[in-house]
């Protein structure tokens, strides 16, 4: 299935969760926040939150800034 991840269209396996997606990307969950179709996914929900075809996902973190 196709999802839109940080603005880019990417392929994701059916049955993916937020947790499996992060693992696949090599991103540690501690320092990121995840939005699924503009709603925040709480960290406690990463294992159970399924991702569906066409979902828009944003994964953000902190960078240098004023």
């Amino acid at each position, binding site marked *: 299935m196709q999802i839109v991840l940080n603005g880019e269209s990417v392929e994701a396996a059916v049955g993916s969760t937020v947790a499996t997606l992060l693992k696949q990307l090599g991103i540690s969950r501690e320092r990121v926040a995840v939005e699924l179709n503009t709603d925040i996914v709480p960290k406690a929900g990463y294992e159970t939150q399924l991702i569906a075809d066409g979902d828009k996902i944003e994964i953000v973190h902190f960078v240098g800034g*004023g």
Partner: protein
Amino acid sequence: MTESADKLIIGGREFSSRLMVGTGKYASFEQTARALEISGAEIITVAVRRVNLDRSKESLLDYIDLKKYTLLPNTAGCYTADDAVRTCRLAREAGMSDFVKLEVLGDEKTLFPDNEELLKAAKILVSEGFTVLPYCSDDVIVCKKLEDLGCAAVMPLGAPIGSGLGIRNPYNIRIILENVRVPVIVDAGVGSASDAAIAMELGCAGVLMNTAIAGAQDPLAMAEAMKLAVIAGRLSFRAGRIPRKLYANASSPLDGLIG
């Protein structure tokens, strides 16, 4: 009146340093970390951005001891209340802290705040339990409205972001100081150590800067200069300066002059 008792309290948290420093524009993460350390800052700003999907493993936070600093995520680059609120919610989830530097910009050229959108966002964020530190115009009416909404501080600009023009309207800052009770922190515009000292001598609770340090020819030396300037300016404010007089007033006694 000892220096140790002179704490800055924001959102119920106590800080010893009155210098807040941004983490953008440094040559490297190592330099960022060194500058922060030298500055003595306890509150540091960060931006919220998309993770680069093909990124290297290095990230700013790998270089920063998170036990030493309170992260103050900003909403830089947001031009609407909705975008700013969304960014703050993400920041809270990523950082586990309610502190946010709220900025809602009105224009790319000046980066001046859009006060209407700023007030709208502040109201929502306060109702959601955020500790809101808004970057705002040096306008007492806006500052009072932000205070009334429940913001934990107000952060009027000294001059446009990154301009280094200093405190362009010290009288506006004074009027704000006389009319709001929450901490007043000058955010943006500082170019050199004397600018920071002026802000503190006016009676501001603190100064927030990024470019003045990161953009200096020697950022580490400037970090130290800013640390000392904020301390000196604060002490000078608390010490109470002499009144300005037009004519001279001799420092040496007139009695006992020879001849």
